[in-house]
């Protein structure tokens, strides 16, 4: 039996009839065409599918789209303001926080929540905050640097 959902994705409301077994990540990618959110594993381990569900980071491969009914979802596509990159995107670029870029959308969404919880994070806090996200090529050094740089940029912007 299909079910109706009304989900605001990056500020745009969407009403859809979907199969209950549709995972949120497939709803975003296949129904809405938002392919920035990646699928990197089948075991809920890699974090490349990370999005914000009502402001909290979740693995979109381990949440049903039906569960997002009435909720707000933010994906990597929702971070930039027009042509202006989000400070996290800018910092990943500047610090070479990506090589192939496969893990990057999930990494950035996880970092987004990390900076909300810890606006001035220590290196250890950054590393712990990203424990759910795997990168197979860049290595974590530059990713940690990028998050720290974004924290500085966002702190400067808000003070």
């Amino acid at each position, binding site marked *: 039996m299909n079910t109706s959902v009304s989900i605001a994705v990056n500020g745009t409301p969407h009403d859809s009839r979907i199969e*209950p077994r549709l995972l949120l990540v497939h709803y975003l990618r296949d129904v809405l065409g938002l392919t920035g959110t990646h699928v990197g594993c*089948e075991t809920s381990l890699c974090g490349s599918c990370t999005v914000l569900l009502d402001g909290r980071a979740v693995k979109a491969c*381990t949440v*049903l789209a039906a569960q997002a009914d009435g909720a707000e979802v933010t994906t990597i596509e929702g971070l930039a303001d027009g042509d202006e990159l989000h400070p996290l995107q800018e910092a990943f670029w500047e610090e070479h926080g990506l090589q192939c870029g496969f893990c990057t959308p999930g990494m950035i969404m*996880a970092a987004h929540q990390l900076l909300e919880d810890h606006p001035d994070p220590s290196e250890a806090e950054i590393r712990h905050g990203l424990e*759910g996200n795997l990168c197979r090529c860049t290595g974590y050094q530059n990713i940690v640097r990028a998050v720290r740089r974004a924290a500085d940029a966002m702190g400067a912007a808000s003070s």
Partner: protein
Amino acid sequence: MIPAAFDYHAPTSLDEALSLLAAHGDEAKVLAGGQSLIPMMRFRLAEPGVLVDLNHIEGMAGVTEEDGHLWIGALTRHAEVERSDLVRKRYPLLHEAASVIADPIVRNRGTVAGSLVHADPAGDWGAVMLACGAELEVHGPDGQRMVPIDELFVTTFMTSLSPGDIVTGIKLPIAGKRSGGAYEKLERKVGDFATVAVAARLELDDDGVCSAAGIGLTAVGATNLRAQDAEKALIGKKPDEAAIDAASRAAAEAASPTADNRGSVEYKRDMVRVLSARALRRAAAHAGGEG
């Protein structure tokens, strides 16, 4: 991978959820954080025909001290326990365990009660609740009852609850004046399930003598285990090195690990001893005793 098809219900009250479960019998399963059930459904290890999602029921989450006990609502996420100031200040065992379950993103969704009902012997909350002597508040077709944690686990992935039951919360003894606890988890890498883990809780009287002790073990048996002989080795004694050593050896005896890619039987059993001693020393120090 995609789960098998099912019907989805998102009731907004407990009564509605109970009626849905009653109407669908064995077909139906409760969905909480989904961090174990959805992966199992994706692998088709679980194929429920009906899912009853508890997430829209108000008032099922939160950690509070009330009427002489600590109450953890069934829908309380691991992350909520981890961030709670009350827990950080007064229940170090719970805080430490919450901080090492899975990774921060899984912790945002996964719930304490879901973890207990999932009954994975490698789950962390089972050992913690055994050490604490927790009770589960359960609502079922015949009304409400309390299920002591010692009566919950039957075997791997199986509890004594019935398909029509919903856990609504977990009740723990309130921390005494001189209480302490610690969770020691050995894992191959961050975010992994435990190779071995030990939960320890101590209550001391005014003379620094153990009036209560709880020791729970993770990943060394068909269920989470309670090391009762180890607890007995501490009660009535000061938690000095000799008592901690005796208790740690008894805890190792209580373990019945199996060999796998995380380690041999001998290794895991000895790690129970080592981690028990570490957890008890820290619990004692926290309670203001020796150790």
